[in-house]
């Protein structure tokens, strides 16, 4: 579908509800997955809340779209970076996040974690390597 492969990074900076950015960002990631690019997704600042376990939106009558993140692995979106400092600043650890996995076709379809904990400095280096940065 495309003539070249670029490094795409989607940067999620906002809480999952309150504004629509998180949900509409996920829609771009899912559509973009069809383009066979090198996809990276980062969760920083309040964006780390998007991956929280046990989200319940019934009291605010909004769609709980968090189960959709589980589908990312099937779309070959397997590089999800969570910023360590952002988690810590909010009193969270990896244990508070949904386990998200993918099956590695290069390793006999072994199930692997999609979420990679990165320091702010490491994430800055990864951002620096990207061709395209979408900020949501």
């Amino acid at each position, binding site marked *: 579908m*495309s*003539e*070249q492969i*670029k490094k*795409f990074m989607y940067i999620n900076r906002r809480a999952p509800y309150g504004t*629509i*950015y998180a949900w*509409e960002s996920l*829609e*771009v990631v899912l*559509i*973009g997955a*069809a*383009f066979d*690019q090198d996809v990276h997704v980062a969760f920083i600042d309040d964006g780390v809340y998007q991956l929280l376990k046990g989200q319940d939106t019934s009291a605010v009558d909004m769609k709980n779209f968090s189960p959709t993140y589980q589908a990312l692995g099937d779309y070959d979106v397997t590089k999800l970076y969570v910023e360590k400092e952002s988690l810590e600043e909010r009193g969270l650890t990896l244990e508070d996040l949904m386990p998200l996995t993918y099956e590695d076709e290069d390793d006999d379809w072994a199930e692997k974690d999609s979420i990679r904990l990165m320091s702010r400095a490491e994430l800055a280096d990864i951002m620096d390597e990207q*061709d*395209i*940065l*979408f*900020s949501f």
Partner: protein
Amino acid sequence: MKFAIQVNEGPYQHQAADSAYQFTKAVLEAGHEIMRVFFYHDGVNNGTNLTTPPQDDRNIVNRWSELGKKHDLDLVVCVAAAQRRGIVDEGEMKRNGKSAQNIADGFRISGLGQLVEAGIQSDRLVVFGD
């Protein structure tokens, strides 16, 4: 250089809508190419012809239409974002049984793939929003 522009915020509410326009204009004046302007989130509201700002203010929607006409710009409104926010062209009107259409001159409604494709095909994708 080939630029693609993404506009994520609505007109008047947020200066990003103005900045995107001013930047696009400056890119063209400098002799570069704009391969697409993609309107997402509340940015789709830049593409409704029902906008009626006071006469002593800028008309953000018409401004895009005029620039688009002059430079043959591809002004694309995201269909999923547009459906949520009531931006409708003739096809969407028929498909969804709506009573009217309101897409502004020079804009078209299409999918998110157009945004990803813009990222792939341009030299620079510049995003305007918070």
